[in-house]
């Protein structure tokens, strides 16, 4: 028997008894970051493949959602900072070993490119906004230039979108101190989940039946790939060392088995998989519920991953100290 107990009063907030430094803010950011990546990719691809007739929503209107969604995510990310006034410090240095530093600088590239992507489709997608822009000096010229450069812009957006999607996973997987996160599968998994949620959003946003059908089919494939990646992720952890075995046990028999399988995999992946199959076979009635479940599943994947990573650790000391005693000091 080995029993390790803290005999002095250590109860550092958000560190003890187990890490809880990152909460819904980070989960929302990772979810919306992935969704943004998906939107960027689909919008760029629709333009490059010249799908203006078959996929008018993706081709003309989808791109505008990317900066809006990402900005909401950036806001929650900002809310998570303990020292908010120092946010500018992300841009006073570049740390090549820190994924977060890469992320901060990738955003500097992503925002202007997203803006160019929106401008290149604004006249067709949102004539009202384009009209406003044309009224300001050089506005019309700007739209002309962006429309002419639509394809090169899309060629830039596509790899950047893929990079953003993978980055949201690498942000966590690079932290070797948290066994549940320390898997290379997390990057591709978050990318595919981001693409899948973007496809779900396109099903909701698209007006033409043909386009809805296209994205339902795309989403079906993406959900299937996501299921395979989740299996690979669990196999990766399940064939790892002691800490990773303990980490994967949380969702394979441990305390988080029920939330992981019954609150995430079943309603967020398996049920929409079945419902979208029904929809493709012409069975009506699930038009909205399936994509909404996919979006819910995308968020749950991030939320549970953020939670479980913090619960998995290399150290696990019993704590005898009662933090309530501190209240007596006041």
């Amino acid at each position: 028997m080995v029993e390790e107990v803290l005999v002095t009063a250590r109860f550092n907030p958000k560190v003890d008894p187990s890490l809880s430094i990152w909460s819904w803010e980070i989960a929302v950011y990772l979810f919306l970051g992935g969704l943004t990546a998906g939107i960027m990719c689909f919008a760029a691809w629709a333009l490059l493949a010249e799908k203006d007739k078959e996929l008018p929503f993706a081709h003309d209107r989808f791109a505008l959602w990317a900066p809006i969604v990402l900005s909401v995510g950036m806001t929650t990310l900002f809310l998570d900072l303990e020292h908010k006034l120092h946010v500018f410090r992300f841009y006073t240095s570049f740390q090549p070993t820190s994924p977060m530093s890469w992320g901060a600088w990738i955003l500097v590239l992503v925002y202007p490119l997203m803006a160019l992507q929106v401008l290149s489709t604004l006249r067709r997608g949102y004539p009202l906004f384009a009209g406003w822009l044309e009224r300001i000096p050089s506005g019309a010229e700007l739209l002309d230039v962006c429309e002419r450069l639509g394809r090169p812009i899309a060629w830039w957006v596509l790899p950047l979108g893929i990079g953003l999607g993978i980055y949201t996973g690498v942000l966590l997987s690079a932290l070797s101190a948290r066994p549940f996160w320390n898997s290379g599968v997390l990057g591709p998994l978050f990318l595919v989940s981001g693409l899948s949620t973007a496809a779900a959003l396109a099903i909701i946003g698209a007006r033409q039946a043909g386009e809805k059908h296209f994205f339902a089919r795309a989403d079906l494939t993406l959900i299937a790939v996501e299921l395979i990646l989740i299996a690979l992720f669990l196999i990766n952890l399940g064939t790892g060392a002691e800490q990773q075995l303990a980490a994967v046990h949380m969702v394979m028999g441990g305390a988080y088995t029920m939330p992981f399988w019954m609150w995430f995999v079943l309603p967020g992946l398996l049920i929409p998989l079945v419902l979208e199959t029904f929809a493709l076979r012409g069975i009506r009635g699930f038009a909205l519920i399936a994509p909404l479940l996919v979006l819910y599943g995308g968020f749950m994947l991030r939320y549970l991953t953020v939670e479980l990573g913090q619960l998995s650790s290399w150290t696990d000391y019993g704590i005898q100290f009662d933090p309530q005693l501190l209240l007596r000091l006041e």
Partner: protein
Amino acid sequence: MITYAMVIDTRTCIGCGDCVVACKNENKIPAGLNRDWVVETTRGEYPHLSTEFRSERCNHCAHATCVTSCPTGASHYWKNTNIVLVAAEKCTGCKACIAACPYDARLIMHPAGYIDKCTFCHHRVDQGLDPACVSSCPTHCMHFGVLNDADSPISRLLRTRDYKALLTETGNQPNVYYLL
């Protein structure tokens, strides 16, 4: 590079916690927060039990994952040594370093919001003094010095005694050693 290390004799440590109090006094740590702590490990089956006390803190790793994960350069090595510090004026409180530390040795300094940790009392080391925890230890079980100087007391201790460091398998190269 100078590698500073702490060598703690688990045979003479009695787990009194004076090191923890000395640190809180020296570094003005707010109530409820701790930069160091004492762990009691019990092994075996009754009545054949053995107990080990360990005074633990930041391991001032030579390959510190908290430094490599910091997006702003706030987590850094002090003056070409292995002493890991946080520059409060660069810290955004993103908490990546807390997640990156396998020892859970970092904390959020409330109410200021930046990340705080053991500094090996570098302000004392700069004056040639031992860290507060080491100098206050009533059983003299704690030793501090330069690891890459073969004649330093801690190097000699490590040559003559069995020792371990915590979680060396993380690859972080910790620099707090425990004599067995």
